[in-house]
């Protein structure tokens, strides 16, 4: 095969796979734009009314606001808590790394349904009456973000020769804190940001904890989507496409900003 033909072949395979992956999304998009598509082969007409209905629903806007503030707030808290912790363990107490490693596996090892039962038990009574408030979700989501951030930061630190850098900085007169902020943090920034985006798209789509721990008291996007199931499926399609677009736009913006 000539190079040209080979390239055309590779190109077509790639396009085909993209197409396959896009089918569900495209179908949802088309469906959300249809007026009625029930008993007929072709839809009866195209309309934006589902989108208008959705974006004018105050309940949706509140849910969106809830999800966004919850995700962003959680990630800021996680970064502030976890990054120094991982650094301290890596630099000062490498023996504790095994423990931290096991800790990061827990959110994956225990299914959300199981751990939410435990959380409900613990936080449904005084003095820690948190169930039904966003605060229990913040705490829970920090735990979910932990493995992503830990992995990214730890790998970055490993690649960095932290000990010599810290030694060099200290001999040049910098305190450990100065060295951390001026040298270590800028060098792990890329990995940290990548892990924060990953956690963001995960958290914005989280359903089980949001539904079981806060439920109707603090409705997030996913809980809203679930509660709207009884509605027209054109409406829920519009919701899914909106949700997907928001995540996509935010991720693209953040990636651009991080460059």
């Amino acid at each position, binding site marked *: 095969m000539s190079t040209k033909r080979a390239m055309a072949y590779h190109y077509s395979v790639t396009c085909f796979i993209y197409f396959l992956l896009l089918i569900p999304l495209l179908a949802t998009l088309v469906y959300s734009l249809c007026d009625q598509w029930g008993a007929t082969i072709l839809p009866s007409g195209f309309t934006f009314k589902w989108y208008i209905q959705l974006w004018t629903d105050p309940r949706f806007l509140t849910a969106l606001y809830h999800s966004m503030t919850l995700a962003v707030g959680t990630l800021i808290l996680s970064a502030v808590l976890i990054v120094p912790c991982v650094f301290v363990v890596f630099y000062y107490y490498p023996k504790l790394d095994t423990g931290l490693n096991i800790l990061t596996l827990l959110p994956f090892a225990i299914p959300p349904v199981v751990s939410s039962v435990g959380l409900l038990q613990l936080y449904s009574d005084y003095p820690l009456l948190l169930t039904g408030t966003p605060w229990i979700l913040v705490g829970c989501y920090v735990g979910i973000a932990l493995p992503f951030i830990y992995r990214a930061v730890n790998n970055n630190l490993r690649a*960095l*020769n932290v000990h*010599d*850098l810290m*030694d*060099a*900085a*200290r*001999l*040049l*007169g*910098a*305190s450990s804190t*100065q060295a951390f902020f*001026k*040298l270590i943090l*800028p*060098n792990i920034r890329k990995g940290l940001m990548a892990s924060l985006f990953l956690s963001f798209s995960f958290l914005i789509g989280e359903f089980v904890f949001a539904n079981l721990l806060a439920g109707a008291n603090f409705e997030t996007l996913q809980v809203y989507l679930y509660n709207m199931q009884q509605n027209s499926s054109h409406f829920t399609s519009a919701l899914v496409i909106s949700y997907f677009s928001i995540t996509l736009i935010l991720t693209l913006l953040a990636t651009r900003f991080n460059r």
Partner: protein
Amino acid sequence: MNSVAISHLTKRFTEKTVFSDINLTIQDGEFFTLLGPSGCGKSTLLRCLAGLTQVDNGTIQLGERDITHLAPQKRDIGMVFQSYALFPNLTVRENVAFGLRIQKLDTKQIKQRVDDILALVELGEFAERYPHSLSGGQRQRVALARSLVVRPKMLLLDEPLSALDARIRKHLRQQICAIQRELKLTTVFVTHDQEEALTMSDRIALMNEGKIIQCDPPEKLYIEPSSDFTARFMGQYNVLDADQAQQLFKESYQGSLAIRPESIYVFEDNRQYDERFSEKIAATVKSHQLLGSIIRYQLIANNVELTVDLLNRHAERLFDVGSELSILIDKSAMRHL
């Protein structure tokens, strides 16, 4: 005066004693080398001087100050690491300026001092580059500039050349020596390479297993090894025990004997040999190696294997494996250990 006095210095790691009771004095402006095989404690000793490793016992004095328990930030000591330890997120200029920024000097002064020091290490044109785009030799020069720009009282060099290739290493060696002499900076250099130590140092402390075996200027260390270990480590010395010495010279000897490979000569008919030399000894060539200006022969003489270095002067004076020849040994250059 930035002389260094180390007394009774001891360092242990849980079970293992790295070194104990080390006593050293380093003169102001001296280029002092800690030489030894890997694991002998030389790097740990250097880290103790820098304050990066805590000592268990003893004191370190720099000039008038006791710095034994001082934080590294407060010691006024510069250090260059084997791994360079350049800050990857900063340009060459920012790397060098780091220490001055911490001292909060004004921008103009920082720029002036950074420019001066970069000119000294011949890296002026690389100021805006990032470390990853530099070669190993250039990176090490940045590291050197970074530690010199804060005008430390003492400079520590932890095997700074061992990650570089041979040609760059030789060049950088000369550059470091020239800068050190120009600034008259008290310098402690750690290496396992005896050639590096011999060419650069004012004085060398040879270490083994946490002890200082011998501490002398390079010429003395090389010509007058005080022990078996020094003789073997510093060159290709032939170290013979009493039995071997007796076998070689047919005379009785006590203790071991160190003979430098360049103090053994091949007998030439038309030359006069005075009483410094031993009797002629018959020998056979076992193997040879070309080292450039020198040819290193392994000879067997009276069943004793000897290393002999001959200048690579005439093509007709090459001896093939199996050749029979006569050797003479310069007895005045022999060392009884």
